[in-house]
């Protein structure tokens, strides 16, 4: 794939480094000349010194044949404009925009970045999970952090112990994926009975995490 990365701060630099290792073709656009020189020395990729918000700079970077454009500068308005230019002017199939200020996430989705990535919110969420509850672990997030696979250890006090799966009223958009009981992995069916100490793996919308947790563990 051919990717253009606009903005070579920490995020842009590591992204370029990782992706170029995966044999993708990368070009990087950066406004700061000394950063451009450092990257050109270290990585074998095309580095364009210029303002990525200007269409001609994007053209120099080869945007007409790009599959993906990732706008990861520190300025939200710049990232959004870059995504819009890529989409509307150059018909790039996929645009990823970094959201620096979580307040701007809505405007990103409304005004057309395909995939807004809100790093601040993601990190805050991870830290929040680490400090809040220990028996509830977020294993993985998908879809820009809207969907998650979580693991919950059923404590003795759980309200669903000794109940059949079919009798449990799960919150909307949540499913039980599997139950780990000792060495055994059980695919839950309607008549599966839950036991204390079971590890429940569930898929849920982020918004329904709390009701799911209340259901599985009881009110915290």
């Amino acid at each position, binding site marked *: 794939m051919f990717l253009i990365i606009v903005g070579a701060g920490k995020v842009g630099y590591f992204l370029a480094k990782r992706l170029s290792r995966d044999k993708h073709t990368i070009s990087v656009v950066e406004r700061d000349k000394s950063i451009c020189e450092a990257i050109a020395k270290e990585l074998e990729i095309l580095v364009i010194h210029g303002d990525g918000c200007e269409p001609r700079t994007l053209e120099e970077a080869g945007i007409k044949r790009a599959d993906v454009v990732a706008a990861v500068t520190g300025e939200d308005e710049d990232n959004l404009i870059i995504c819009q230019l890529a989409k509307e002017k150059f018909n790039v199939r996929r645009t990823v925009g970094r959201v620096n200020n979580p307040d701007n996430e809505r405007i990103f989705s*409304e005004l057309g970045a395909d995939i807004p990535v809100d790093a601040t919110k993601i990190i805050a969420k991870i830290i929040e999970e680490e400090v809040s509850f220990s028996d509830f672990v977020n294993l993985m997030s998908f879809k820009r952090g809207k969907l998650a696979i979580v693991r919950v250890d059923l404590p003795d006090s759980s309200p669903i112990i000794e109940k059949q799966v079919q009798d449990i009223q799960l919150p909307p958009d949540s499913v039980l994926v599997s139950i780990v009981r000792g060495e055994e992995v059980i695919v839950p069916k309607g008549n599966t009975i839950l036991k204390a100490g079971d590890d429940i793996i569930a898929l849920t919308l982020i918004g329904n995490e709390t009701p799911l947790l209340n259901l599985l563990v009881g009110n915290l």
Partner: protein
Amino acid sequence: MYVIIVGCGRVGSELAQLLSQEGHNVVVIDKNQHSFDRLGGAFNGLTLLGNGFDLALLQQAGADKADAFCAVTNGDNTNLISAQAAKKIFKIPKVFARVYDPQRAHIYSALGLDIISGTMLFASMFRDKIIESRFSSYLIETKDLGVLEIEVKDNLVGKLVQEINIPQELIVVAIRRLDGVIIPDPQTILRDKDILMAAVKVISLEKIKARFGL
């Protein structure tokens, strides 16, 4: 009218004062508190400190009941994003953005935003004042349409306006004479020292220069 202005620089503050003096309700947004000093003591509208595309702030500014919105900060991208928020999210009926970069101005006008950009206009005016002796052109930002000023002397004196017009390419819309402005008809005869104002297709400029020996 209820008008929101983002950016309280020279243009923004001037516009805010004009509208406020005419009795309109004006809200001005700027990131820098000191910018509001430009509004002077007579300004009786509201000022809000913050980012012009912060949706919560726009809500607070009354964006859902505003009649018009102007984004005139010195950042093209801020103006473009603010204007899109005003238009697409708050559905404000009249939305304008100032954009310095001609390329972005062109692209976003094509996408349906009302863009006001002086860059091309000023650059071409300066160029013509320096280089051309008998005409100057005011290129409109779309790069299709321009307005020409042609000074009449020697070879053009005594010609009819219809001899100057070129169908599909150039039309004389006004003549400035010592005694005033006239809107010509095809039979109007050109006099020495007339200044012709003509609407022109930009791609025809060179051809027109050659044709009239300008």
